[in-house]
């Protein structure tokens, strides 16, 4: 049986390569959200509701802190030159905006 982490990593590598991987936030977001859902979501939503997680796609690991700037600082120390994605635990997105409409956002970044 292939471990869940190995399955996840394989799926992510396939996704990144087929998506013509580049530092595109959409590619990183999709990959990171897969890792988060598979490995951390259940635990983090129980233990750290409304805090912030930063997932490193390269290592499939994550750090948590109460505020986004603290989570990013923690991640920068933990993951040297990692490919990082910021998540608000318990929410679909880290941020909500009432000012921007989809037409402003363009189609490329839609998740």
């Amino acid at each position, binding site marked *: 049986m292939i471990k869940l982490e190995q399955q996840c990593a394989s799926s992510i590598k396939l996704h990144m390569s087929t998506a013509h991987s580049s530092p595109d936030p959409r590619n990183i977001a999709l990959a990171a959200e897969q890792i988060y859902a598979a490995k951390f979501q259940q635990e983090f939503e129980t233990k750290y509701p409304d805090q912030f997680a*930063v997932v490193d796609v390269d290592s499939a690991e994550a750090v948590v802190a109460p505020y986004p700037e603290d989570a990013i600082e923690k991640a920068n120390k933990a993951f040297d030159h990692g490919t990082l994605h910021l998540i608000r635990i318990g929410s679909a997105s880290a941020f909500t*905006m009432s000012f921007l409409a989809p037409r402003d956002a363009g189609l490329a970044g839609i998740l």
Partner: protein
Amino acid sequence: MPLAMPVLPGFFDGKQPCIRMQVSGTQGSPEEISAVIDTGFNGFLMMSARQADIHQFEAGPSTAATLADGSRIALQTALARIGFAGRTHQGVVTLAPAHVSINLVGIDFLRRFNLALVMTHEQVWLMDEPDFVRIALQSGARISDTGQSG
């Protein structure tokens, strides 16, 4: 007891409440910008990617944002030093999609700078949160542990 920090006026740009602040990255001098106050934005600050390039903001992680209609979009973030009311804090700046040039300041700005926002339909002010809480308590308001006033 005098206020610890004076009341700082914002301004209205048309119908949009705005404030001015200084931004700086790893290069160049601090620059004054104006930003629309978006109480529906729960982040710190949103700026254009072009501004991030000019000031050489430190690159941050990618993230996701939910827009007004519920759709989700992936965005890049950066770390920038923001100056306001004589204080400076580093915060997470969400970089807007390429063709969006507006700056937005969100609710997390208030947390980071420990500010209260007071607004009417044509006036906007920011003040030290402890000062505002003291004034509110003196007027008979009750502040719960969660910060919700009664």
